Structures are given as C-alpha cells and as structure tokens.
C-alpha cells in the first residue's frame, strides 16, 4: 500500500458499531474505556471483540479457533527450540447419557465443571481449550516426556473425583478419556499430524474402556512384547536361526 495514496482519515461515527457493543454487553465485558470514537476506545473495542471470538462462550476456555492458532505457534516453537511439548485431547465419557437423563442444563454444568477442573490442574502457561461439544484439548509447552503420564493422570483423577452439583439435591460424577502425543522435537511436522496422533491415543483410551489415559509411547518404550513376539515368533525366522 502506497502511503501517499492513503484514504482520508477514518471517522468512527461512520462505522456501525451497535452490534459490536451489544455483543460486548451480552458477554459481560462492558463498553470500552475512553472517549467514544477515540483511537483508544476503538482499540479497546477491537481487543474485546478478539477476546470474545477466541473464547468458548459457555466455559470461557480457548475455543477451537484460538486453539488452532496456539497449536501452530507451538509446533513452530518446538521445531525451533527443541523443548518437548505435549498435546492432550480429552472427551467426557458417556456425555450423551448426561444430557438425555438429566437434561441439557445439567450437561452445561458438567461442561463448566470439567473446564474449571482442567484449568486448575495445569500451569498458567498451558492452553486449555474446548474444541468440540464435549471435547477438550490442552497444549503443554516445555513438558518433558517423563512428566506426561503424571499430568494426564492428574487431570483424569481430579475430574473423576469432582462431583458436579446439578440441582440442590442431586450431584453426579463424570469421567474423561485422555489421549496424548508429544510434538516431535527438531523435526518438521504439522499441527494436523500432531492432533491426529493425539486423537489416535484418545480412540485407544475409549476402546480400552474409557476413564483412562493413553499416551503415544516415546522412543524409550517403543517396541512392546507383543511386537517382539511377532517379529521373532514365526517359524520362517526360526528356520534360519
């Protein structure tokens, strides 16, 4: 853009801002500070809109959009700095049953409770997001592989142990299945590949009976006894030994 052909200065009063201000009020953000129409006021409005559009309305967690941004940023950072990062994906077990038997209001309370436990169970630097209906994700930068299991298990246990009050006389317990994968250090990879690997572990956790953690094995514990059995077990190989 050529600076000399810049359009005439912007007059904020020409902008239609009613809908934006209404959205802010509804989200409980209040109006921006400063003189209405001033640059500072407009910046405040834009900042608030960005904040709203990056959060999940029900739980206040990062939404799917800002999760994708954070994930891409983390992949870049891992490839550059070489610090291991862990991605966890979580799914509330039998959530449909909660909605069907206790009602959608109860379902919302469960989602909020899980969100709050998640947020409390990790470090402030970690990104906790609601990426789908009853699906959550956590990005843990600089998480050594030795700690992966511990943090995922802590999250699972805290959710299991936290009763959700859905009415003055009723509380219910929910559980989550957790899948996780570490970002490959130093290696060119992609956010999609990383998510797929974590999702695969989540499917494993579900298939193994739910309310459990499955992390992708790291290089140290790579070949299972089962695989070794198949590798050496056939008669064809024994013939040659």
């Amino acid at each position, binding site marked *: 853009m050529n600076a000399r052909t810049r359009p005439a200065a912007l007059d904020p009063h020409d902008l239609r801002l009613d809908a934006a201000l209404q959205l802010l009020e509804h989200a409980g953000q209040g109006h921006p500070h400063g003189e209405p129409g001033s640059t500072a006021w407009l910046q405040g409005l834009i900042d608030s809109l960005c904040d709203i559009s990056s959060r999940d309305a029900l739980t206040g967690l990062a939404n799917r959009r800002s999760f994708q941004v954070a994930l891409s940023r983390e992949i870049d950072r891992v490839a550059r700095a070489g610090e291991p990062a862990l991605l966890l994906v979580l799914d509330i077990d039998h959530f449909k049953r909660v909605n069907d038997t206790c009602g959608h209001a109860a379902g919302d309370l469960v989602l909020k409770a899980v969100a709050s436990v998640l947020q409390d169970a990790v470090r402030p630097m970690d990104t906790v997001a609601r990426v789908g209906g009853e699906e959550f994700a956590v990005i843990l930068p600089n998480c050594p592989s030795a700690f992966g299991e511990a943090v995922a298990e802590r999250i699972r246990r805290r959710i299991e142990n936290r009763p959700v009050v859905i009415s003055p006389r009723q509380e219910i317990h929910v559980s989550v299945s957790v899948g996780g994968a570490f970002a*490959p250090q130093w290696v060119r990879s992609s956010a999609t590949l990383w998510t797929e690997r974590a999702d695969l572990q989540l499917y494993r956790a579900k298939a193994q009976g739910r309310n459990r953690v499955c992390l992708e094995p790291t290089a140290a514990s790579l070949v299972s006894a089962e*695989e070794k059995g*198949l590798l050496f077990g056939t008669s064809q190989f024994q013939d040659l030994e």
Partner: protein
Amino acid sequence: MSTPSADNGNTRRARITAVTSGKGGVGKTFVSANLAAALARRGERVLVLDADLGLANLDVVLNLYPKITLHDVFTGKNTLDEAILQAPGGFSVLLAGSGMVEYSRLTPEVRDQLLNVVETVKPRFDRVLLDTGAGISDVVLFTVSLADDVLIVATPEPTSLTDAYATIKVLATTQQRVAVKLLVNQVLRPGEGKVIRGQLQQVVDRYVSQMINADVKLELVGEIPSDTAVREAVQRRQLLLECFPGSVAAQAVGALAGRLCE
C-alpha cells in the same frame, strides 16, 4: 545428465540419503563409505557427511587424519570448503572429527549449523550420504528429517532387528516416512535379507501402518553377505572396494549402488 535443460542445469540438487540403523555396530559407517565409493564409480559426485557428532568414526574407517573438520566449521574457525576432503574412493567427505562431543546434544545452534551445512552442499553434489549415529536420539531424528530417503542398515541379529523396527516406527509416526529402504548386512545365506524384510514388514503392517493410517513399505535394496574380506579391509582401514573389489561383499555393495541409482 548429458542434456541438461536450460532450467535445471543450475538448480540441480543432490539426493540426500540418510544411513541409519537404530543399533550400533551393524556396519553403518562401513556401508556409507563403500556405498559412496560404488556410487562414485558410477559417475556420481558423492559427499559423505559424518553426522554421528558424538562418536564419529568415519575418519577411522577411511584412515584419514583431517586437520580441519566439521568442528572447525561449527566454531567458525574454517569455511565449509576447507573442511570438505577427498576420500580414497573418489568421493568427498565432511568429517565430524574429535571434540564434537559437545555437539552430541541437539541445541538450536547445532541444528542450525547442520541445516546450513546440508543446504550449502546440496547444489554441489549428486548425492549426499548422511552417516547418522546409532540410536534414536534427537540428533539422529533431526538428521534423518533432512533426507529425501532413509536407508536402514540391519543385521540378522534379533537386537538389530528390534532396533531397526523401533527406528521405522518412530520415523513413520513422527515424520510420516512411509517408504524406507532396508539393507541387511552380514547375512549368512542368500535370501536371508528377503526373509528379514518380510518379518519386519509383517510387524510394520500390523502395528505401524494402522497407527498412522497409511501403508509403510520397506524396500529391500540389498543384502551383504558375511565375508572375511570385510573384516580384513576394516582392519587395514581401507575401503573394501579398493582392496578386495572382487569379494562377494564388494559385489553386493556395487549392486546396492546400482539399485539406489534406479
């Protein structure tokens, strides 16, 4: 090659092949050096880069006493051109040299240095062989990630097979490597390489391919018979292709080079 078209004459880049194994002591460096000589005989301009930064021994295999090594390039003491040496077999080498232990962990600095070296040599050669260290360390994984293709060297020993399998699995799951070349070294009878490839492929099909939702294919590119000439050449610190060109192992290396040029 004889009729380069106007647009690819200056932009030709080396094919980069990582030679790796999982387990140490399976003849990785022996293969890198002799394969380089065999490729050079076929007219390729070949560079072997000793990427085993912690425990480099390409200099030992080639009986070279380099004054300038990759270490000096990394520290900025010398230029890359000064560190590229001519090896006996008609190819070029970049030796890690001693004093590289401090680089055996992949810091951002080492990573950038390696990347820079590989990018710089790419346009000048037809083939670059990256002789990686043993194991599945982050240095090895990073080095392999720079390569167009991976050659895994294994012997029929169960420990070697397990480590080769672990390597294939890590490369498939972390780098989406779905095509891996396999060389079986020190085979005791003809056809053993084929059996071993079958064993590995079977486990890969069952466990790895379903993990990444894609078929991972192992291609057997050669088998090198167990041959006393190899031991003798290594003892003399000479290339097998130079001192025993007629040995069965040397012929197998020649066949391997032919296969890789296809």
